[in-house]
């Protein structure tokens, strides 16, 4: 710390789920129980921790939000009645891709970009 721009909170975790109905984005906060656990994954994204996240995604039921956003988001399936009109059910998850990034800053162009720190793809057994 205090030597590189790489900090825990500057490590976004991108989760993409590939289903029979297409791909969608999962908010990691939906699957990682609490803030401390979330910070733990950011600090030390071990394959074991990422596998636990993937397992948790495979075990739950999701729907794709086909709403206004240009990107499709996966929502946790609640009660049938609670589903929004824009939500679309899917049968099964084929793959879960989890990528943890760190920041990379270029002072010449003043641009901040993401650099892959850890990347794993988990396939449904």
């Amino acid at each position, binding site marked *: *710390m*205090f*030597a*590189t*721009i790489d900090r*825990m*909170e*500057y490590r*976004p*975790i*991108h*989760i993409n789920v590939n289903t029979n109905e297409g791909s969608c*984005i999962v*908010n*990691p*906060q939906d699957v990682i129980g609490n803030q*401390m656990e979330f*910070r*733990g994954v950011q*600090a*030390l994204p071990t394959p074991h921790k990422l596998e636990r996240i993937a397992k948790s995604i495979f075990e739950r039921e999701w729907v794709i939000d086909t709403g206004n956003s240009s*990107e499709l*988001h996966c929502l946790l399936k609640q009660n049938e009645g609670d589903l929004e009109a824009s939500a679309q059910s899917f049968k099964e998850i084929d793959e879960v891709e989890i990528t943890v990034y760190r*920041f990379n*800053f270029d*002072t010449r*162009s*003043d*641009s*901040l*970009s*993401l650099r892959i720190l850890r990347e794993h793809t988990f396939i449904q057994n």
Partner: protein
Amino acid sequence: MKVVKGIITQLEFYSEKLVGDRFIVLVLLMTLILSLLFMDHSRLLMGILYIFVPVAILFTTVSKSPIYWTVFGVLMLIGFIPLLATADNHIYLTVYWIIAVALCLWTRDQGYSLALNARLLIGLCFAFATLWKLLSPEFLNGTFFYFTFLTDDRFFDFAELAAGVSQEARLYNIESLETLKSSVNRIDSGLFVSSVYLNNIAVFMAYWTVFIEGWIALAFLAPERFKLSKSRDIPLLIFMITTYPIATVRGFATLLAVLGFAQSQNQNRHMRVIYVLVFISIPLFSLPFERILLNILNLF
């Protein structure tokens, strides 16, 4: 000249009072206050601190007990384990210090042991900090400070004062940062708004930091017979006074004041009052000095 002499006489007068048992009691009291104020990072730690610390602050017989400190140290260690991956670096150092205190109180010369351990902890901490910075190209080429001035709210006023980074630029940069930080966005790059002076300031700050931290490491780790070791309080106090009013990490500043005071047992006794004064004044470090200066400059 008379004023300076008067201050030195006063420092020496009070320093002579802080010897022997009084010195040890004050080290323990400062450590307890430090723990209570800056170690409540989880419910478990809060529980331990709120039950254990007030009793020891109120009763000197408790705070001087090696058994008390051993139990307190073990409990703090247990409470700290779940935070291993996420805790700030000064939390680690505080836990090390609490354990060191517990061990020192079992020794025959407690004052000497506390001083030796405090000196080594400061020396090793700054040695590793310097090494880490020297091994980080991002630090040495100024990128770390450049990025920090643009994105860390503790440095915004300094960046405005020293390099003229405007408030509009600051808001724009925060938005870019938040977009990239988000785990649900899929944008993978963003532009920042800076100032032409910022790069030079960032590079200067990087080299200054390596210089001052390296000086502290060498001065505190050098054996007592070396000249460098005799003046070790100077770089530490320069570091504290120049760093913490800008980067307001009060927990670390307080810990360094405690360790600085504790290591002053063996030499430079007149410095110990200065460490106590720094310890007491640390809440003042939170004052927005740069903002005050900016407001004054804006008047003209």
